[in-house]
């Protein structure tokens, strides 16, 4: 059937593109079906399919390799079928994460979801692993195709998600995978030739599946589904982009009345609203255009209205404009110029175009300038100064209270961010940040600590005179002023709070007797904490607090990471008595993911070794399994460490999370692919060690250099237009990624010469390490920062170089 064929490089590239796109898409889909952090855990573990494949191929490659073309194509077709099939099965398993500690059945369901989603990755890894094992001399080319294909996939999936709904994108991927099989048939010149055409025809099948079948089965506990239980509610609009699935909900019979933090004394009813859900949760609203200003009076009854009562603001900036509630609030107070920033252009389009009659096109008002940008980036690029910078209540209460944001990097609430905001205030200007209140207090206190730190780091020696914190039962508002608050302002602030029954938590000169009057807590926690955080003893207060209150920084941008190990056993012991909400789930999920991945990896890595041992004579005597396995393991860890850390570093430069991720990921994969292709010359001339040595030296030198110079480069060039910054980022990534693309194929090529039977095993080892790496990188970043992640990666590369020196059977 097959003569001396070339590796199916185009097919491999298309397959890798599809596989990477599939991974991104699954996270998107499961963020809609479940919640983002669960999506992250499920997909991370599903990627262990690569590890499973390594083990499987270790045991079967001797039988599969002689039938390579068939084995390759069958695996590609199975990948195509399982992309859609396994997703459909997995999404129909009713899994409720909140019941996981109550109900023993839930972990089993979760396991089943993992197993189902592991299958597609298993098949794709089989295809690529078999090709690597089959074409020993051409490994660099195969691997280059793999990486460059993945690079295209990382860009392609973002483009695809702009064009179609995630479920349709999945159908497209199913088709692409089967086209990859047809391509392989053609590339390998297999007979009968028309089969390639039959496969092309067959590839249309995923596209023909009915939309109703593909539609994500969203958890009944997500906000949107709960609202849909109410009579008369319906989704009137659904639009999708890589930033999320936006659903607009209309509820004509039972009006929506979303006004977080409304005063207990409020009597005004909110205006009619449309619900705006992102990924079937996190409701915000588009408010009906008010017939008169008075109709907006209810917005003056929330804690976030405080700054408007202290002095007359002429020019303000709203970060996170969304459906426009904060703009309406500013309009109510007669602000003359409003700059509003919103990341998602689709939301603006909905307000401005589709629902223009309903919303009254608030963003087109003469006093409003809307900017579609990432909030932090907008501020750092702006040369304006404002009387007020208002940071909207951006996340939903449900996710906030369950601690689900712990994993998400957030550059809005870091010390550096707050410094930047304050630098953009007029002399009398203020920064106002409202948050949901969690009990025992967490967010609000961490924000307060962050503000204190930001002011101190800016050289301000009287932060205690520039801070005000008030709270209702549900929300808190922190004010940071660019100069000391005046007595007159404090009189107005007290009046504002008294009229609305909001509590004073901190203001310059506060006494304990003034606190905890309307929304009574066991202790005046907020006041006590604010005093302690402003004292010289703040560090010991933070140390003794049962949640993590250390301010987030740009290097450790985890504002919502409140978890402390010291508190875990106490909380677990309170599990039956309502203690569950005290658990910070996000971080625990990360640890759970790591543990599960670690156990699975150990089995997957060591099982083939045990089985090898039984086949006496199979292992060439000079091969050191620990050195060879170690080499591919540390490479797997190091590659992703650097990739993940640099995505974060470049987010601060490119600002838009999507563009940053796409640019960094695609550039890394592309240049690593080129590096892999380049590494052939070392493989061909048998100078593997030189190749690895040179590449590792380059990685370490460039990596260290970047640790030092990237920060200054970014702050120097932060003002430049986005396109130039993207180009510059690509150029900066190129040398590093190019070098990083070399050690892996060189290792495989060297192994291919002395012990080709080991290739599937190290392929699996590398796959397992990659899964662990992504999780470990986040844990390291949470605890030590991204600098440490990069530094660890550089050390790992050095270790790889050392383990490459001997023990490879060819000395």
């Amino acid at each position: 059937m097959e003569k001396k064929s070339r590796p199916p490089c185009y097919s491999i590239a298309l397959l890798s593109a599809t596989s990477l796109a599939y991974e991104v898409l699954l996270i998107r889909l499961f963020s809609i079906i479940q919640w983002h952090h669960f999506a992250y855990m499920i997909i991370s573990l599903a990627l262990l399919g690569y590890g499973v494949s390594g083990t499987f191929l270790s045991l079967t490659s001797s039988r599969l390799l002689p039938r390579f073309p068939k084995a390759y194509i069958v695996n590609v077709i199975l990948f195509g079928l399982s992309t859609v099939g396994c997703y459909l099965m997995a999404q129909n398993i009713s899994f409720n994460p909140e019941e996981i500690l109550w109900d023993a059945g839930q972990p089993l369901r979760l396991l089943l979801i993992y197993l189902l989603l592991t299958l597609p990755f298993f098949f794709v890894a089989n295809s690529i692993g078999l090709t690597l094992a089959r074409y020993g001399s051409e490994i660099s080319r195969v691997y280059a195709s793999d990486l460059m294909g993945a690079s295209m996939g990382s860009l392609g999936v973002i483009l695809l998600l702009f064009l179609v709904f995630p479920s349709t994108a999945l159908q497209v991927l199913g088709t692409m995978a089967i086209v990859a099989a047809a391509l392989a048939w053609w590339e390998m010149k297999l007979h009968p030739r028309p089969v390639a055409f039959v496969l092309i025809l067959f590839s249309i099948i995923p596209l023909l599946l009915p939309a109703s079948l593909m539609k994500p089965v969203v958890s009944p506990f997500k906000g949107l589904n709960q609202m849909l239980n109410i009579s008369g509610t319906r989704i009137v609009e659904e639009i999708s982009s890589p930033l999320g699935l936006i659903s607009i909900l209309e509820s004509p019979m039972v009006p929506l009345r979303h006004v977080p933090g409304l005063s207990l004394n409020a009597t005004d009813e909110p205006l009619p609203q449309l619900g705006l859900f992102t990924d079937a949760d996190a409701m915000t609203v588009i408010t009906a255009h008010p017939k008169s200003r008075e109709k907006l009076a209810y917005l003056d009854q929330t804690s976030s209205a405080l700054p408007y009562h202290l002095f007359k603001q002429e020019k303000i900036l709203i970060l996170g404009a969304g459906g426009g509630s904060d703009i309406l609030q500013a309009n109510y107070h007669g602000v003359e110029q409003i700059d509003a920033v919103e990341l998602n252009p689709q939301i603006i389009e909905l307000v401005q175009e589709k629902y223009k009659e309903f919303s009254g096109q608030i963003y087109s008002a003469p006093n409003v300038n809307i900017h579609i940008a990432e909030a932090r980036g907008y501020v750092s690029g702006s040369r304006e100064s404002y009387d007020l910078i208002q940071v909207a209540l951006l996340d939903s209460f449900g996710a906030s209270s369950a601690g689900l944001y712990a994993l998400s990097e957030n550059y809005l609430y870091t010390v550096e961010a707050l410094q930047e905001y304050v630098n953009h205030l007029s002399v009398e200007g203020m920064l106002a940040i409202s948050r949901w209140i969690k009990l025992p207090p967490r967010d609000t206190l961490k924000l307060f600590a962050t503000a204190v730190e930001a002011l101190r780091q800016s050289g301000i020696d009287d932060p205690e005179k520039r801070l005000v914190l008030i709270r209702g039962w549900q929300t808190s508002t922190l004010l940071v002023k660019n100069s000391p608050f005046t007595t007159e302002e404090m009189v107005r602030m007290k009046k504002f709070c008294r009229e609305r029954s909001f509590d004073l938590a901190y203001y310059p000169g506060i006494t304990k007797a003034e606190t905890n009057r309307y929304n009574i807590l066991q202790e005046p926690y907020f006041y006590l904490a604010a005093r302690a955080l402003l004292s010289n003893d703040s560090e010991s207060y933070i140390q003794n607090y049962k949640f993590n209150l250390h301010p987030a920084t740009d290097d450790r941008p985890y504002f919502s990471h409140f978890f402390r190990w010291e508190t875990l056993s106490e909380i677990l012991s309170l599990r039956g008595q309502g203690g569950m909400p005290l658990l910070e789930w996000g971080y625990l999920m990360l640890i759970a993911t790591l543990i599960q991945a670690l156990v699975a990896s150990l089995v997957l890595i060591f099982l083939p070794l045990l089985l090898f041992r039984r086949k006496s004579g199979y292992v060439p005597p000079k091969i050191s399994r620990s050195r060879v396995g170690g080499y591919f393991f540390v490479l797997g860890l190091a590659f992703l460490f650097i990739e993940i850390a640099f995505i974060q570093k470049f987010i601060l430069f490119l600002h838009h999370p999507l563009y940053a991720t796409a640019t960094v990921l695609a550039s890394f994969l592309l240049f690593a692919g080129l590096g892999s292709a380049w590494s052939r010359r070392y493989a061909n001339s048998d100078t593997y060690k030189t190749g690895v040595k040179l590449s590792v030296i380059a990685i370490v030198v460039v990596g260290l250099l970047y640790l030092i110079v990237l920060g200054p480069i970014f702050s120097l060039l932060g003002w430049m237009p986005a396109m130039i910054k993207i180009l510059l980022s690509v150029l900066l990534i190129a040398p590093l990624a190019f070098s990083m693309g070399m050690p892996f194929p060189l290792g495989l090529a060297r192994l291919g010469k002395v012990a080709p039977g080991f290739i599937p095993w190290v392929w699996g080892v590398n796959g397992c390490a990659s899964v662990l790496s992504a999780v470990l990188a986040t844990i390291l970043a949470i605890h030590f920062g991204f600098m440490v992640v990069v530094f660890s990666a550089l050390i790992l590369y050095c270790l790889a170089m050392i383990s490459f020196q001997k023990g490879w059977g060819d000395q």
Partner: protein
Amino acid sequence: MKYIHKVLIPAVFVLLMIAFAFAEDPYVKARLDMVKAIEADVRTTSRYINTEDLDPKVMTVMGKVPRHEFVPSEARSLAYRNRPLSIGYGQTISQPYIVALMTDLLKVAPKHTVLEVGTGSGYQAAVLAELVDKVFTIEIVEPLGRSAKKRLKRLNYDNVTVRIGDGYYGWQEEGPFDSIVVTAASSHIPPPLIKQLKPGGRMVIPVGSRFMVQQLVLVEKDHQGNVTTRQILPVRFVPLTGEH
């Protein structure tokens, strides 16, 4: 022999009674165990809820209301576990400990009229119905409201009136109320509900997700009409360690 008469006969009688009770209601023991579990939880949380024990009348009712009737048939075996259970439509029946705590916080008396917003399966309404004169309950999810209505009728809770609709405006014709329970999630406390609370009245709102109640908000209206909230963690937990 006469001792046998004195000991054995009453013992046999008691055993027969227990067996009879179990035959009548196989959930009696489960319910008693549930009550014990709640009592144990309350004791460990006493400092935070400002009481060593919950009102004995509340505990008696917790031991009486057939919770298994308020859960879906497939979850009956779990009905008396101290955990929340799904009742469909993305809604839950709360953890018994939380139901007891909420009921206790309301400080209801037999002559009281209580409003509940968010009927769910009707369990909380049934508990309240055992303690007060009249319970008015509103459910926004139509199928849930209908089945709760039927269930409460079948179980002879004649002092409960179920209405299907929007709870935001309360139930003005029947108000003002001595107590209000709001179990349906809301971004704020609806002003009409505060208005329909009698001076001296109490309103309880659980805050958190469907399966995990983070805190209970007790809204109190004093005799002058001033409204305050008290936020109660249902659990013994001090955020600071050591002295500070």
